[in-house]
């Protein structure tokens, strides 16, 4: 899944940057925070763990931690298992 740009309310395209998201290329809003990314994915407020370049980002820091181009994000949640 990829988008080439995001539009703000005025119809002006915000710049994007390429990151790796769950192993796939993804165009994120430039300078987006982790929280912003989760919102764009409809995952804000859900029980997820977020890794940035392999390291855990604590939930308390989702708003403060901003993504850089080329960074690797993994969003992890619970699935069925024994």
């Amino acid at each position, binding site marked *: *899944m990829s988008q080439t740009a995001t539009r703000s309310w005025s119809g002006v395209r915000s710049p994007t940057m390429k990151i790796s*998201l*769950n*192993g*796939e290329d993804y165009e994120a809003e430039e300078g987006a925070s982790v929280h912003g990314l989760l919102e764009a*994915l*409809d*995952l804000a407020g*859900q*029980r*997820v*763990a*977020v*890794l940035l370049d392999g390291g*855990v980002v*604590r*939930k308390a820091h989702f708003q403060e931690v901003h993504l850089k181009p080329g960074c690797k994000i*993994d*969003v*992890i*949640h*619970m*699935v*069925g*298992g*024994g």
Partner: protein
Amino acid sequence: MNIEDKPLKIGNREYRSRLLVGTGKYESFEVMEKALRESGAEIVTVALRRVDLSKKGEKTLLDHIDPARYTILPNTAGCYTREDAVKIAHHARELEIGDLIKLEVIGDERTLLPDVVATLDATKQLADEGFTVMAYTNDDPVAAKQLEDAGATVVMPAGAPIGSGLGILNRNNIRLCLEALSVPCIVDAGVGTASDVTVAFELGVDGVLLNTAIARAKDPIAMARAMKQAAASGRLAYLAGRIEKKRYATASSPIVDF
């Protein structure tokens, strides 16, 4: 005489149900939800995986499991090294569902039997970090005791390989594990049908964890109910105290005296 069972104590929580049920391999979330309810389980296991972003907006597992109703026990399924298992445990901690972790470090892809050495190392590390470790292991009583000494809160010997449905393959070893342990012993893996669960409880185990036997049964909801009854029956038979096994007969009535 009325036999009252004590609750199953794990960490600082108590549970009336001694059946723990997994959430994998069901044909649908709806079937899973009903089967879990029929089983009476209070603890359910989950795995951790990347979100499938192509399924944006679709219902997820947590839409069908109420964390207020169930204790959710995340596992480290799919890990073949201590490092990976520890990482998954750290990820699980971020989900804010408690500090319980079902530790699995697999040693062999075909049998899914545990790498006990790596499990021991991971247990020590995670216990030191404050996790409540429930350690999946094989039915070796020496390994079971080592895991307890390493800090496992619960030791979970496999009855048989995961998903095999072979039941309790070595009853004597499970008995030896029970003798070796002072922490709860919960048989995990290999259960195929209700009698396997009854056998496990009759041996004296504190709990049984199963997934495939319910999820892949032809009627999972009926099987879940059967498992609940099997657990209750096996546990009650254990508490009631069975007769000894004897080589020869002992008559039920006195010798004829006319």
